């Protein structure tokens, strides 16, 4: 097995990740890449408490994670790579060999436009997602396994709540 999902989700570890994806994919570990979480013992404890005992969570900054991803891909157990924003995932696309990116949740914030029910983006974030594709990554939006994977072009063109 390998990293079975490379996900951008601003909630990081939560129900959709642990239960929605974690159970059907039999996920045994999560690689959580976030600089703030990686530097806070309290935040790490918080996220560890959110997963079942059989699921391991490893915390890294983007710089620390990139050279480790090849190793994670060779693990016998299935795992999820998780970032809270596009910029962190971009670093892992550029330096960590990530080739498939799942946009799982980027939620409302001032200045963002709603593209899908669970994806809100600023114009700069539109460009940032497009840049992932230009680097060779296949980018789709999909909140849960049962949903359709929305291709990047469709995601960027979509407008909801208008």
């Amino acid at each position: 097995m390998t990293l079975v999902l490379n996900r951008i989700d601003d909630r990081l570890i939560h129900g959709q990740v642990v239960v929605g994806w974690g159970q059907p994919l039999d996920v045994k570990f999560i690689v959580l890449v976030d600089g703030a979480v990686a530097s806070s013992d309290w935040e790490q404890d918080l996220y560890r408490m959110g997963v079942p005992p059989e699921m391991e969570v490893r915390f890294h900054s983007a710089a620390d994670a990139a050279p480790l991803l090849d190793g994670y891909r060779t693990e016998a157990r299935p795992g999820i790579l998780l970032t809270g924003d596009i910029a962190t995932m971009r670093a892992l696309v550029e330096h960590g060999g990530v080739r498939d990116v799942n946009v799982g949740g980027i939620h409302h914030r001032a200045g963002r436009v709603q593209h899908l029910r669970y994806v809100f983006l600023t114009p700069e974030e539109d460009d940032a997602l497009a840049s992932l594709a230009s680097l060779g990554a296949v980018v789709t939006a999909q909140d849960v396994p049962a949903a359709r994977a929305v291709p990047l072009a469709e995601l960027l063109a979509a407008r909801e709540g208008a």
Partner: protein
Amino acid sequence: MSEFTKRALLAGHADFAHSLLSAVELITGRGAVFVPIQARDLCGDDIQKILQNAMVESGARVIFTDLHAGSCTMAARRVLREMGDGVLVAGSNLPMLLDFALSTNPNAAEAAASAAERGRASITVHSGSPA
């Protein structure tokens, strides 16, 4: 204390809070003891702000959430850390909320702990047997 003083927040995925509170109201008439919080489509920071504002406005110091790993639970833990007091009960179910709604214990934290025990004990599994 008014019978309907807000004593707790109830937060969860989708329509979890409103749906469970409609059942609490139907059974006890005391659904207004809770402040329902819906987190649909919100980022973690916004959920945290909503929970914190609701606690300040209502005076409630108990938060019930649906899922141990859920974003409401994560946000609630951050709120309790910032506010320095309060109780979080994750994994809420209807018997638990009924117990809390009917509790006469003036200490909401103790009432929440008791309700959590009731909720845990209320889970049963029954197997069918041939007639």
